[in-house]
């Protein structure tokens, strides 16, 4: 069939739909590939870099979520190098801002915290930056704590692609990048926010949370976001 491609993942032959991402194909074949920025149904952006895999013939690792399957591709999802890189990425995520699990609303149900455990990260080899970052509590229903944000842009994408409100954006570059509501005003003053809360449900950490939640009280429903996104004919299946 012209729509089917054959590739080899970790030594196994796998069939995939043309145009599908390596991540989707590998996961359909039962492979574990870690990711934090990927949400089924939203446009993949390769923001977290955790899903990187090795592609034969390409000297550097490629993010599985933004790499499209090709006929004859040979992929490794597991190697010492990948394990090491993924652990280093996790450590960079943890050391970049102020992730204090003990006092976080999402403690115990946080994708960042879970992923650190899954990847066997017990500490950060990189020095913590301890940046001074604001908390935006101006919204009547929700809170944004920049200390806990990993810039995965799930909120940006769900707001644009599912809700169609385009309230969230990323401003600045590199380590100074910040999530911004509208033109970097207070979230509570946003004229575009519909208060739907999908950004909160999509957020993998405690960065976006329902107001009034105490430590460990915030749980997210990312599956619901995926269902909505795919029901509306999301960009990925």
């Amino acid at each position, binding site marked *: 069939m012209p729509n089917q491609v054959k590739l080899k993942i970790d030594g196994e032959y796998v069939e995939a739909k043309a145009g599908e991402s390596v991540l989707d194909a590998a996961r359909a074949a039962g492979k574990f590939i870690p990711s934090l920025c990927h949400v089924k149904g939203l446009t993949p952006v390769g923001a977290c870099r955790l899903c990187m895999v090795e592609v034969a013939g390409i000297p550097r690792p490629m993010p599985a979520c933004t790499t499209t399957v090709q006929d004859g591709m040979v992929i490794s999802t597991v190697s010492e190098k990948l394990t090491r890189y993924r652990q280093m990425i996790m450590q960079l995520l943890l050391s970049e801002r*102020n992730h*204090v699990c003990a006092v976080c609303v999402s403690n115990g149900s946080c994708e960042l915290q879970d992923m650190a455990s899954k990847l066997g990260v017990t*500490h950060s080899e990189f020095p913590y930056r301890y940046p001074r970052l604001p908390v935006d509590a101006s919204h009547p229903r929700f809170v944004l704590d920049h200390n806990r944000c990993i810039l995965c842009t799930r909120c940006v994408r769900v707001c644009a692609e599912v809700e169609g409100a385009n309230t969230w954006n990323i401003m600045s570059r590199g380590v100074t990048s910040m999530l911004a509501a509208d033109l970097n005003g207070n979230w509570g003053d946003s004229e575009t926010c519909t208060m739907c809360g999908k950004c909160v449900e999509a957020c993998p950490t405690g960065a976006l949370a329902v107001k009034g939640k105490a430590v460990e009280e915030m749980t997210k429903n990312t599956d619901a976001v995926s269902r909505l996104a795919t029901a509306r004919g999301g960009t990925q299946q």
Partner: protein
Amino acid sequence: MKKVRLATTWLDGCSGCHMSLLDIDEGILKVAELADIVYGPLVDIKEYPENVDVALVEGAVSSVEDLEKVRTIRERTRIVVSLGDCAVTSNVPSMRNQCGVPAILERAYLENVTAEGQIPREVVPQLLPVARPVHDIIKVDVFIPGCPPSAQLILNCVADLCSGRMPEPSLRYKFG
């Protein structure tokens, strides 16, 4: 078999990790078979001894006293263990790092007092500019994250270390 010389200490932490250590309940008997506790808040020895085999360090390095302590511990210990999130990540003690020492001292000792406030300058050890994880200062051999790490996790690690093994990598560690 010669008993392992085990030390425990806490720096800038809440003692919760030591509480979790005590939560091993009758597991302490197993530890007692394998090790002598030669130093720590639970024993009455003032000076950190020489020739310690395993040291469990709770808490972040926040003051000049902590700094001196961890350096002494490293000099006199074979295996140093960072026990709990404060030692491993600097955790809650690091939340002051963004503010600077003068601001937090003023907040604690001047703004928030009803009697005559004053910032302590004697006896109390001076704070470092930022609270840091233990491995920022000295080499750490084993990391046990968690706030606090569960009693079972601590027991497994301590039992492994006291039996001359490094803790099982399959043990499930978790921050927070």
